[in-house]
């Protein structure tokens, strides 16, 4: 089986400070990878380099495209990369307002991504938007409301609908449940798990919440000061951590 994403030796410096150094992994179809670490550990830098939001200094990210097979996204042409960002890739931001257009209705937010890949029939677009709002449990009668009138949890679910409507194969998530209260978090986790299972998505989730990765991620990567200090099966890393830092991290979680 070809990996969906092959990441090799990614490094990014911010001046003389290390953003991330020598990060590499393979992600296979249907797999969910969690990246954990404290703030400043470089986990968001890695995610942004992978998704093309930041330019890495060195390394390569090879994505198995639908048409042409594996291609290096760093050397890809800009239009090609943008197309990827609208079709096979999705990016769920920590703050829903970074991933939504706040001045456009909920239905418009979902429909816009469909139009970006060529959908033109208004009736179809609206129907698909309604369908996706339903899947993320946003009532149909809110379709014409702007996201500014939504609660934080609803905005986050709308962002997920907007991202998944075009049937991406790889989803990048930056703290998708951060900033939400726990009851909303639980519902979102359940939704994400179901979507991953039903659509066979692959995902890379950056978070500092170990409980979230235990429930969502198959594999785990632990970062500290820009370096990957430990990788492995999620429950193995959490139950039998090897590196000093991971041991500290795991033993520092408060028990409820």
């Amino acid at each position: 089986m070809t990996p969906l994403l092959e990441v090799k030796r990614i490094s990014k410096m911010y001046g003389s400070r290390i953003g991330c150094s020598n990060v590499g992994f393979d992600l296979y179809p249907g797999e969910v990878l969690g990246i954990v670490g404290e703030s400043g550990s470089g986990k968001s830098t890695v995610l942004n380099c992978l998704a093309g939001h930041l330019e890495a200094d060195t390394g390569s990210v090879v994505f198995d495209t639908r048409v042409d097979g594996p291609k290096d996204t760093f050397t890809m042409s800009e239009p090609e990369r943008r197309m990827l960002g609208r079709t096979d890739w999705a990016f769920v931001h920590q703050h829903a307002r970074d991933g939504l257009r706040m001045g456009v209705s909920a239905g418009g937010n979902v429909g816009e991504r469909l139009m970006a890949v060529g959908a033109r029939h208004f009736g179809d677009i609206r129907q698909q938007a309604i369908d996706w709002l339903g899947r993320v449990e946003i009532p149909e009668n809110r379709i014409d409301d702007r996201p500014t009138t939504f609660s934080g949890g609803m905005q986050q679910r709308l962002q997920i609908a907007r991202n998944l409507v075009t049937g991406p194969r790889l989803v990048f998530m930056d703290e998708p449940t951060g900033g939400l209260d726990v009851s909303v978090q639980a519902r979102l986790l359940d939704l994400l798990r179901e979507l991953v299972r039903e659509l066979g998505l692959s995902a890379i989730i950056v978070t500092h919440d170990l409980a979230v990765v235990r429930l969502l991620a198959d594999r785990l990567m632990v970062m500290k000061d820009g370096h990957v200090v430990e990788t492995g099966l999620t429950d193995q890393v959490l139950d039998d951590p090897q590196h000093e830092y991971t041991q500290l991290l795991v033993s520092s979680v408060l028990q409820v």
Partner: protein
Amino acid sequence: MIDIQNVSKSFVLQNQGSAVISVIEGGNLKVAAGECVGLIGASGSGKSTLMRMIYGNYLTQSGVIKVGDLDVANAAPREIINLRRKVLGYVSQFLRVVPRVATLDVVAEPMLQIGVSKNEAYDKARSLLWRLSIPETLWGLSPMTFSGGEQQRVNIARGFANDYPAMLLDEPTASLDGENKENVLSLIEEAKARGTAIVGIFHDEAARDRVCDRQVDVTKFTPIKTA
């Protein structure tokens, strides 16, 4: 089905002066299809550790742990995930689920995961819950709010949802009363009849004597402690 050869395991506590705790040395165990082996030994002797090494959530320092064709001790995470989906089931002592997910969905999930149709998966989930006497009124609720015994039974229903060729059972009958214990033991016996290789920890002697074909004392794998 399960073949463990000369395994060892130690924990290194990096933040506590790099203390090394050696738990298992020279561990060997073979379990044939349709056989149930009970692990015995005092608390802290390494029963659960050995079980977790087989499941792959504890790393193994040296040796071989074959489950079917895969050597878990040296396998890639992806191979272990695949093994757990299709070959190796595990009933832990504690239920770990996404909050607010209904009991019926919790039990059906492992089946949906390997591509069983929704109808079939939910039918089987219902029959398992019914068999383990979880009242139907609770099926739509999250098991997190259930009593200890009920949670344990939901955990068992989930563990037995797929017919795995190999299973690990960590105290499946603890905190269960007579009738429920009987139901669980008969599930185990049926799995054995299907040819499932089982490694189990049973503190309840009667249960152990009934389902285990032989017992292995893990104390013999425990290194001699030097102070």
